[in-house]
């Protein structure tokens, strides 16, 4: 029993003196176990006034947009190169001519636009006319300073289109109404409402891959082939300027 009371006193004194260190060690173990939860949260709370503001977010968005545009540009170049290798027609932005709409008849017996540029500006019969959204019509006739566009909605207008998702062809027929009719060439086209239409990638009459419209409704029971009602992406009633794609392919095919 020698030294018993003094040893107990020593242990108590040691514990009393070292509890802050033990608490700190326990806290550090908790932080480690919680993967820095308390530490990170406290840091976030303290550093909140110094977080990046909206300006920096805009910079990042701009940088992201620039990156996407650069990628798109590179893909377009690649696409053009591959199309040239495959002998398919290609189009570029340098072939586009901006033209004002000087007269508009989107309804009635003839559905047409009159444009303020003509053959002197390189526009020819058969060129594609593009509005914000996509293809809006085809040049029907030209004078030296004007040109006339047959709208896709005009009765009797026919173009070949391509359903991009299922990679099927169809014929888009103007019906006089806002919604042209798409007639499929297959009995089972496997399309759904909402599918996007574009000009055919292998088209020799129109520039390839121009957006045209979206499938609005389907009639799979129609004979002799299923058909669909199409909502066009470009609205001819509301456009003041269009772009005419100069038809290099027409020149090369002559």
């Amino acid at each position: 029993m020698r030294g018993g009371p003094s040893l107990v006193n020593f242990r108590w004194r040691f514990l009393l003196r070292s509890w802050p260190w033990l608490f700190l060690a326990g806290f550090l173990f908790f932080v480690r176990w919680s993967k820095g939860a308390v530490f990170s949260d406290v840091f976030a709370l303290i550093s909140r006034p110094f977080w990046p503001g909206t300006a920096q977010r805009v910079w990042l968005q701009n940088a992201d947009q620039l990156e996407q545009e650069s990628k798109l540009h590179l893909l377009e170049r690649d696409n053009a190169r591959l199309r040239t290798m495959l002998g398919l027609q290609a189009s570029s932005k340098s072939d586009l001519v901006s033209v004002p709409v000087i007269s508009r008849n989107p309804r009635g017996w003839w559905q047409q636009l009159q444009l303020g540029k003509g053959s002197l500006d390189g526009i020819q019969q058969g060129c594609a006319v593009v509005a914000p959204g996509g293809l809006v019509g085809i040049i029907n006739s030209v004078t030296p300073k004007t040109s006339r566009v047959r709208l896709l909605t005009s009765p009797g207008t026919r173009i070949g289109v391509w359903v991009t998702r299922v990679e099927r062809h169809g014929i888009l027929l103007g019906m006089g109404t806002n919604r042209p009719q798409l007639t499929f060439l297959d009995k089972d086209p496997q399309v759904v409402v909402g599918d996007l239409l574009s000009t055919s990638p292998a088209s020799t009459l129109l520039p390839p891959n121009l957006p045209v419209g979206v499938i609005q409704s389907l009639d799979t029971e129609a004979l002799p082939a299923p058909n669909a009602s199409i909502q066009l992406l470009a609205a001819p009633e509301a456009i003041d300027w269009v772009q005419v794609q100069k038809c290099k392919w027409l020149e090369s095919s002559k």
Partner: protein
Amino acid sequence: MVRKFQIAAFAASGVLVPVMKLIEPNWLTIMGVAPSWPVLWLLPWALKGGRFKGVFAGLALGLLLDSISLGGASQIPVLVLLGFWWGHLGEHRSSSIDNSFNLGLLAFLGTAFFGLSLWFQFLLTQMSWSFSLFNAWSFQTLLSQSFLTGFLAPILCKRLLFIFRDLKLLS
């Protein structure tokens, strides 16, 4: 000399018809369909001028309007026939023909005839898509244009008839 100049000026006013066709103000349309401007001009002209001037004006208007349309149907035959019909009416019943109701009715019938002629030609020349011509679009265009022209005729045609009468033109 002055009289010849006046007649020439009014004949030249026919150029306003294709101009109006190109302008086609939105506020003057029913469901996007504009009135038949050639009918509104040809009706008073033929009523006052008679058959010969009516036929000639119809031919001139048809040539002008065909030149600014997409094609597929011609407006010349129907405008020549309307010019002849209204000229004949003007020569034989000129006293009672120019009241508002008659003008409206003649314009309505003329526009319906005009639309039916185009419709028939489209059916003949574009047989491959003739089914699309039997849809609501054709009826909508025909009826909207006929009613709108019929409503406007008492205002516009009567005004033109007064001008022709006051200036003693075409008599």
